[in-house]
């Protein structure tokens, strides 16, 4: 059932398509020609390396190596997530990495065990691509959620302090901000879930269908993946924010000022 390989010649034909953006860039003076070449080259090199690497990992299929690789993916994902949230990376790194790791692994293993019914839960062919899809999505939720949470408290500092002065415990005082940021974090995922199948076929499903799977099998995988993404996004963002309190709030219930100093 495997789909036909794309030969190097065919790939070159594909690159030929890029002359269109290059011509548009030149005629309209968009100045994105170098950027296009840079991005495409970088993508090609990265994907070729990934291809070689994944082939190697799939052949070995050692569960330790698979887990280590997922660990590397998670660390990289967490780092990028905090970096783009304009917050102090050092203070948030541990809580976020633990939250993302725990939520994604828990959902992933549940999926592999009970939904896909794998015998080897840590099978590279399933673990790595699914982890990649979950991470890509939970990452976005975390960036939005955590960034939103702390910037909202900072923006409404007087309101926050006032609730503390009324006798609210720290958890009681942050609850409105927590609710709001969690809703913001999962909103796009929920919207995305509701529109799947109408607007576009998701990447994974497309891949499976191209790979020769029946659409009926492909949609079932897609349903599983969408639910997994939603669950792990909400779970990891909740855990991420909650576990970050220990390092971000002081004993007075105030947010450490250094948190807002990027790269401090």
């Amino acid at each position: 059932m495997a789909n036909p390989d794309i030969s190097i010649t065919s790939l070159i034909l594909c690159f030929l398509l890029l002359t269109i953006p290059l011509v548009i860039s030149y005629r309209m003076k968009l100045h994105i020609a170098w950027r296009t070449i840079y991005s495409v080259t970088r993508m090609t090199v990265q994907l070729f390396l990934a291809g070689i690497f994944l082939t190697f990992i799939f052949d070995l299929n050692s569960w330790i190596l698979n887990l280590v690789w997922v660990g590397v993916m998670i660390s990289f994902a967490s780092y990028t997530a905090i970096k783009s949230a304009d917050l102090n990376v050092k203070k948030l790194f541990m809580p976020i990495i633990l939250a993302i790791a725990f939520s994604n692994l828990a959902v992933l293993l549940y999926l592999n065990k009970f939904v896909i019914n794998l015998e080897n839960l840590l099978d590279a062919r399933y673990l790595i691509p699914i982890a990649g899809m979950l991470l890509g999505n939970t990452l976005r939720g975390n960036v939005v959620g955590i960034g939103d949470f702390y910037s909202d408290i900072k923006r409404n500092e007087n309101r926050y302090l006032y609730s503390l002065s009324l006798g609210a415990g720290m958890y009681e005082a942050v609850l409105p901000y927590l609710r709001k940021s969690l809703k913001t974090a999962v909103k796009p995922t929920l919207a995305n879930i509701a529109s799947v199948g109408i607007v576009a076929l998701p990447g994974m499903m497309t891949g499976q269908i191209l790979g020769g799977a029946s659409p009926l099998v492909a949609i079932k995988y897609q349903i599983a993946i969408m639910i997994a993404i939603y669950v792990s996004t909400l779970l990891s963002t909740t855990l991420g924010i909650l576990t970050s309190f220990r390092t971000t709030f002081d004993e007075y219930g105030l947010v450490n000022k250094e948190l807002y100093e990027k790269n401090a």
Partner: protein
Amino acid sequence: MQDEKTMDKLAEDKTTVNELAGDKIIKNELTGSELTESKITECELTGDEIIRYENAGISFGGKEVISDFSLCVLRGEKILLRGKSGIGKSTLFKMLLGFEKPSEGTLYYKGKPVNAQVAWEVRREVSYVSQDMDLGEGPVKNLLDEIFSYRPNREKRNPERLNSLMKEFELDQDILIKNFENLSGGEKQRIGILIALMLERDVFLLDEVTSALDSELKKKVVDHFLKHKNWTLFIISHDREWERDGVEIVEIGKDSLS
């Protein structure tokens, strides 16, 4: 230039403190106490001290806002703090609530130096009304519900008392369903006062709570607070309405007491 200014300010504040101390000593003589050295000891003697600042100072980004401030508020006392805007009066309240940490000196609440634990205690026992009332967004009723869901306030939910206070301060029932962010400054202030009173605490930090009210309402609010002899009031206000019998005026950042 900058240094000179700071020095001037320091000198100015020092004078004030001396003046304040002097004021306290006179008061002491009136009460027949033999103590004349410092008000700090005076507090310890009278026993029922609620709030005490001992040479407290704070600076933001190297700039001194308050320095060497000493004051003592006893149970039942009504103290009106006056002084130019931006001199750091509100900061004095915030230090007590643990929102700002003094860079020098010490604060005491009921004789205990204010650390994190005491700050949480202050927040549970003292009613604070800030000058920029920001309850949040949404219907007032929901925001009140949220406040009465906090653990120390759960028993304080009392619709009848809420009604009678609303009547007293001329707030219509329909204000409860209005969104807080759309209320006028005067309405927000009254909501803040209302909450402070609903919490049934007996120590109040009132930061410009009558500034947006008309003279009739100002009078009502001041009447309400002053009629309770056992309440301890620490007030920041530019309103003349507060200058009544039994209210002690403390001027900060000025050479003389007016």
